[in-house]
């Protein structure tokens, strides 16, 4: 018995030893194999993050000796980092504000804007909901609390359950600006920590309304046509690319001065056909060139 136990102990130690040996080996290979000679860093919008990450991965596969680091944090965080000279490219899902440009100029930074893709926000309801289009005024009323029943917007006599994202989402800010025109979200709106939560609640609750990126649209929910004053438009790719759909916004890269070196190479890659195809794959829309 004691012998058996001893044998097990030795075996276990041996296995652990081998594992550590293995870890040691790969570590060495990595540090010797591909030490990057050039690197740039991107920081900013969480909306742009999946796109920037996909672009960076493909770019690094094509040019293994170059390294592109992408981090999120929010548009404001990225722009602040650009102003401090901390990053090569700031990613943003909104335009730089006037005071940000001023702060940059004061710091000797000359921000240059590059539009890299277009993002659409769709307003979704349960598939059993007879409502299929809303005007911006109705949508604003629903989200600021002045409309609380579906019958007021042409639906059934049922309460509206309004769903919003949490305040750290870029979409939350954009929606507040574009639809609520600065009004507060109604205080009784449900707040979901992720797009998946919104889709989940809308799928099973026929009273619910929420907003999600067009990239996340699927058959489980119904996207509404929106009327921003120029007729009702469905969030189809054509309408978003042409700008006819009212809830779409450009996504930006900001650089300090005209890009050069690796920064220019990376932006050129993003704007190339390969890069723009990737935009579609990630779920955003390529820009007209």
């Amino acid at each position: 018995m004691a012998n058996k136990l001893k044998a097990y102990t030795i075996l276990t130690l041996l296995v652990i030893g081998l594992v550590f040996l293995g870890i040691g080996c790969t570590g060495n290979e990595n540090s010797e194999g591909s030490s990057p000679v050039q690197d740039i860093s991107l920081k900013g919008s969480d909306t742009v993050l999946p796109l920037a990450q996909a672009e960076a991965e493909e770019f690094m596969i094509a040019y293994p000796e170059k390294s592109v680091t992408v981090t999120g944090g929010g548009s404001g965080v990225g722009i602040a980092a650009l102003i401090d000279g901390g990053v090569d490219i700031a990613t943003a899902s909104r335009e730089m504000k006037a005071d940000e440009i001023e702060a940059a100029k004061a710091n000797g930074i000359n921000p240059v804007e590059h539009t890299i893709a277009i993002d659409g926000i769709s307003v979704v309801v349960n598939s059993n909901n007879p409502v299929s289009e809303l005007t911006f005024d109705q949508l604003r009323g629903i989200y600021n609390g002045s409309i609380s029943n579906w019958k007021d917007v042409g639906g059934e006599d049922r309460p509206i359950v309004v769903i919003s994202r949490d305040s750290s989402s870029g979409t939350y800010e954009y929606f507040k600006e574009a639809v609520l025109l600065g009004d507060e979200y109604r205080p009784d709106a449900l707040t979901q920590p992720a797009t998946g939560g919104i889709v989940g609640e809308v799928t099973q609750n026929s009273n619910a309304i929420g907003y999600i990126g067009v990239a996340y649209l699927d058959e489980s929910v119904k996207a509404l046509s929106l009327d921003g004053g120029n007729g009702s438009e469905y969030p189809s790719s054509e309408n978003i690319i042409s700008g006819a759909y009212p809830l779409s916004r450009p996504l930006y890269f900001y650089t300090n001065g005209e890009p050069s070196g690796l920064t220019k190479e990376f932006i050129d890659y993003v704007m190339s056909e390969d890069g723009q195809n990737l935009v579609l794959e990630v779920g955003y829309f390529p820009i007209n060139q």
Partner: protein
Amino acid sequence: MLNRKYKEKTIESVLFSVSALTVVILFLICLFLFRDGLLLFKDTSLLDFLTGKFWYPTSVNRQFGLLPLFFGSLLVTAGAILFAVPLGIASAIYISEIAHPKVADFLKPFIEILAGIPSVVFGFFGLVVLVPVVRTAFNLPTGQTALTGSIMLGIMALPTIITISEDAISSVPSTLKQGSLALGATRWQTIYKVIIPAALSGISAAVMLGIGRAIGETMTVMMVTGNTAIIPSFPGGILDPVRTMTATIALEMGEVPQGSTHFHALFAVGSVLFIITFLINLIADSIKKRYRFKVD
């Protein structure tokens, strides 16, 4: 010989510094939490924070009122305890007094597994299964309510309550039990007249720790309670969406600019949460001490 003595000393001091590290970490967490939390009161008065009725962190007229979040936490936790305490104590009594040892041995590991399930899994289960059930059962506009959170938290607090109550019940001296049975009391009379009163302080400690577990839970409540920051009515608000203190921090910490008022407000909420759980643990500890004295 000398060598051996040194070795003992070294091992002892290494073990001491490792355990001392826990205290240091706790102290540092306190320090940083309170330091950043206190900075809020440069912009907002303490009274406004503690008695404010509105939590509008991103609006033009920012308001950082704790009350909606505090009552949200309170409501969800109270519901969880109402749900978990009777179930938990009943299970503990069954396992330690009534069940056949084989049945008890079969049940115990399952209770322990329940404690090991990650909270995001509980949250997912709640969102997909319980939320629609609550909505249709009470015919509500949405199933994301305080009640849903309470039920989920109750399930999550069950293992804590069962395990600690069971410990308390089984450490009641068997002489007490045998004496009661010898006097002609039935098994049920023995349980509720002798064993439960004798184990009461241990059971109370279990309940307090269960409350501590429930009030600090984040992921699950964030996924099932709807996160609406308005003061819930009582007791009807149990069927309305609520937002807890923990969920607020988790929801808003992501993109809050560092060093802003909002940032400090979240730390202040964290400090309040810390003080509450600290007090609950202190109470549980003192109850436990009393109970140990009693059994001896």
